Every structure is written in structure tokens, then in C-alpha cells.
């Protein structure tokens, strides 16, 4: 693996409802960095701040403090659409990643140009069809024969699979997956996870994947980050991670939570 820094996050802080009784610090100094090609899994209890971290990296949410660098470029103050050239993502909600009113073909064409300048060339072309078909056929869902169908006709799992293909169509530098199989039935979840692993390997992106599935957390990826109360409480490299089992991970979870109870 080369030592090219894909994503570097330093001291992110975010407080919602600052200055009111509901004040809530959701990110409390989050720092980590991922090299390109590195695949990190992010775990943590509900409300730990995982989605907020993902949203901060993607630019959907601007942080109060801290910096975000993509390939050494400071993007901290850029809106999401200006970071999209480097970042592709799959949302927890299957409805968010695709445009229901457009066809599968049109959704893919949009993603194919992620972050690029759009012009007056036709958005769809013969050359693209073959490429899109080949990408979709990896899923084994038969979507490659339904290019003209509207995405609104697809099931949640099919939409999520399509979103994943869209995300990896033009080699992102950073891939963000936020519990992207959580809303799917077990079979579809396994399928999308398989396709994700394949896509991650192929794209060489720095990948951050959030999951609540401890089996996935220990089996996949080469880094393991755990978040709690807006902080990264531990960060295992691939060697340490290989020695960890799902049961141990659950154990550490409980440990953290009972600690919090004691100090509360």
C-alpha cells in the first residue's frame, strides 16, 4: 500500500443547539486519517456521532472546529457538491442515493459524471450503455436488462445496490458507507456487502464503513475505529484487528457503556 494520505480529519467539533438548554456536543474532537486504498470500519453505539462524522466528511454538515483534508487539500469549508469529485457515498436510507423519478440509466449517467462539469452533450450514449450493463451485471440482480426502468420501480435492496454501483462507477478517492445494508433483508444485505467489498478492492478508495454488525466489523476491512460520545475511543490497525473477535468487541462495547454509567 502506498502512503498517500486519502483522508485526514483533525479535531472535528460540532455542537447542535449551542447556547441553549438543549446544547449537545456531537463531535468532541474527532481525529483520524485514512490512506488511499485503506478500508476502515467504524462502529459505536446509537448516537455516538458516526453519521455526523460521515456527514462532516461529505460536507453535508459544516463543523464548528477542526479540519478535513482530502489528498492534502483543505476542504473544511467547501459544500458537499464541491467535494463530490473526490467523495462517493451510500446512505443508510435507500431512498437518498438515487433519483426515483429518473431511469436506472439516467441515474448511472449522473453518477458517471460525479463532480465533473456538465455541458450540452447528450447525457446518454451508446458507449455508456455497455459500460453500465457490465457494471450492473456484477450484482446478479438482472438490473442490466432494466436500464430504461424508473428507479421508483425498484425495491429498497435493488436501489441500494444501484447506489453502490453508482458510487464506484468513476473511481472515488473516498468512499463513505453509512450502515448501507441496515435497511435490507439478510439476503440483500449479504449481496450488497459482497458487491461493496468487491468495489472497494477494485476502486482503491480510502473507505469508511459504518456498521452495527460486529461480524462484519471484525471480518472486513483493515482498520477498526470505535466511536463513543463524539470521540474515537479506539483505533485498531490490521494486526490488532486480526486478533479481535466479535465477542471481544461486544465486550469492549459494554465496558465503555458501563464506564459511562459509573461516571455519570
Amino acid at each position, binding site marked *: 500500500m502506498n502512503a498517500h494520505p486519502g483522508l485526514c480529519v483533525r479535531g472535528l467539533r460540532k455542537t447542535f443547539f449551542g447556547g441553549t438548554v438543549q446544547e449537545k456536543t456531537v463531535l468532541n474532537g474527532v481525529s483520524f486519517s485514512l490512506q488511499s486504498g485503506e478500508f476502515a470500519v467504524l462502529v459505536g453505539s446509537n448516537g455516538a456521532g458516526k453519521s455526523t462524522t460521515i456527514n462532516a466528511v*461529505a460536507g*453535508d454538515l459544516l463543523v464548528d472546529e477542526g479540519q478535513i483534508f482530502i489528498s492534502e487539500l483543505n476542504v473544511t469549508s467547501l*459544500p*458537499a*457538491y*464541491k467535494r*463530490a*469529485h473526490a*467523495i*462517493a*457515498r451510500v*446512505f443508510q436510507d435507500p431512498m*437518498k*442515493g*438515487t*433519483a*426515483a*423519478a*429518473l431511469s436506472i440509466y*439516467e441515474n448511472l*449517467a*449522473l*453518477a458517471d*459524471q*460525479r*463532480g*465533473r462539469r*456538465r*455541458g*450540452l*452533450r*447528450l*447525457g*446518454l450514449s451508446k458507449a455508456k450503455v455497455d459500460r453500465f450493463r457490465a457494471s450492473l451485471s456484477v450484482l446478479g440482480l438482472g438490473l442490466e436488462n432494466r436500464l430504461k426502468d424508473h428507479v421508483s420501480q425498484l425495491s429498497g435492496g435493488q436501489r441500494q445496490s444501484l447506489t453502490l454501483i453508482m458510487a464506484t462507477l468513476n473511481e472515488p478517492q473516498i468512499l463513505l458507507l453509512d450502515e448501507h445494508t441496515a435497511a435490507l433483508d439478510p439476503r440483500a444485505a449479504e449481496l450488497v456487502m459482497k458487491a461493496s467489498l468487491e468495489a472497494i478492492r477494485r476502486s482503491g478508495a480510502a473507505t469508511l464503513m459504518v456498521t452495527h454488525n460486529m461480524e462484519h466489523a471484525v471480518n472486513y476491512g483493515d482498520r477498526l475505529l470505535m466511536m463513543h460520545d463524539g470521540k474515537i475511543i479506539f483505533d485498531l490497525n490490521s494486526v490488532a484487528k486480526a486478533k479481535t473477535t466479535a465477542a471481544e468487541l461486544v465486550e469492549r462495547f459494554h465496558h465503555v457503556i458501563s464506564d459511562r454509567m459509573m461516571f455519570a
Partner: protein
Amino acid sequence: MDFLNTYFNLVPVSLAQGTVYAFVGLGVMIPFRLLMLPDLTAEGSFPFGAAVAASAIAGGFGILPAMLFALLAGILAGGLTAIIHLFFKVTSLLAGIIVLTMLFSINIRVMGKPNTALFSFDTLFTALLGPAGGSPISQFAVLFVILCIICFTLLWFLHTELGLALRAVGANQVMASAQGLSTSWYVIVGIAIAGGFAATGGAIMAQYQSYADVNMGVGVLVIGLASTILGEAIVGRDTLFRQIFAPVVGAIIYFQAVALALSLGLRPSDLKLLTALFVLLALGLPILTERIRKRRSKLSQ
């Protein structure tokens, strides 16, 4: 069957009127259906286009430049609505009301008075169809050809990378920005294009009736909406082609219905009420049928 005679006499004129208002229909359909943002600016950009075109023609600028000024005026009006909506976080409906209210005063400033007559000037119709301005049927034919050219251009545009991006912003803003699209920019472009359509409709109307008046925008929005809904009921909206031609077909059919209603003895002043009721019925129909269906199934239990 006296009323049929009256109706047949009205057919050519109402065909021509239908094609003029088809521009407004397109201007209403674009924000409403492609951007999913209801916009009322048409009510102000229609008379704005008329005022600008009439003043330019009366000021000796010539027909084409006058139409171009009107188009630009409409683009500005639509763009302003979008900017007020986006940057002051005002709903698109309220933003439109603010702009159309501003335009009422601006239109009087543009014309210097509440109306401008064009009887002694060359217009689109006298230039193309002779000094008398042509028969209603020839006016209809000319406008229909222009509309078809514009609709096919719009169809092409919506298939380009930019047009596809515009539709993505209307369909899902989260997805659109994740794909690198500035949603604000596309909303501004879309509503500006819609404003351009409504203003062009106004410019053509001013030349069609040979005068522009500040009050000529009252009720055009509902006509545009009625045309869109009626057209969609007739040609459907499951392809882009149908979606684009729906307001055109709808506007033409709408004015036939108006002609029929008038020949049946209805007062012209009742038309707005009927049109508004039609739009209400069309929008409320799904809810109404759902309620009736539920009640039926309850009764049958």
C-alpha cells in the same frame, strides 16, 4: 343548436389564444413538475414580458430585439424568485408573490403608464402574416410551429448533461449534491427558464392583441396550471416528450372548452371561477376518490 354555431365561429380565435397561453403552461409546468417547486412568478412575468416587448416595439427597437428583451426580463424575474427562495429561505410560493407584486409597479415604470397600444406598429403577426396581422387560423399555425420548435429544443436540452442534472435536482436534492451538482444553481436556472417562457407568452400576447396592460397577468397562473393538468390527463406524463407537450395540448383544449362555455351563454367574468374550480377538482380528485372508496368498503363490510 344555436350555441354550436357560435362555438364554431369561436374555434379559430380560441385555437390562437390556446397557443399563446401554451407558453405560460410551459412556464408553470417546469417548476411544478421538473423541479417539484411550485412557482407563482408567471402571474408577474407574463405582463412583464408584455410590457417590455410593447415598450421596445413602441420605442422602435424592432420585433426580434423586443422579444429578446422580454425573454431576458422573464429570466431575471424567475431568477429573482429563485434567489429570494434560496437565500432568504422563503417558500417558493411566497418568493413568487413578492416578485409579482414588485413587477406590478415595475411594469408601470417600464411602460410609463398602465398600458401601451401597438395598433400603429409592426408586430410578429403583421411582419409574418401581412399588414392585417393574418387570420386567426394562420396565427394559430405560426404559433404552433414556433411552439413545436421550442418544445423540441426543450426536449433536447432536458436530455443533455445539464438537463439531466436539472431533473436530478428536481427529483432528489441530496442525491444531486452528492453527485456534485449545485442544487441552488440548478433551481435558479430552472425557474429562470420558466420565467422566460411566461414572459415570452406575454410578449406574444401583447402583439396578438396589439396592446399591453398591467392587469393582463391576473389569473394566468391558474390558466397555466389548468392547461398543464388537463394536458397531462390527455397525453399523460410518463415520458419527457409527453410531459413537455402536455401543457401545449392542455392549453389548446382548455381554450376550446372556454369557447364552448362562452357560446353556452356563460359570462367571461365567470371563467376564472370555473378554471380555479377545475384546478381544485383536478388536484383534489385523488383524495376525493380515495375517501369515497374507503367509505364504500366500510359500507360493504
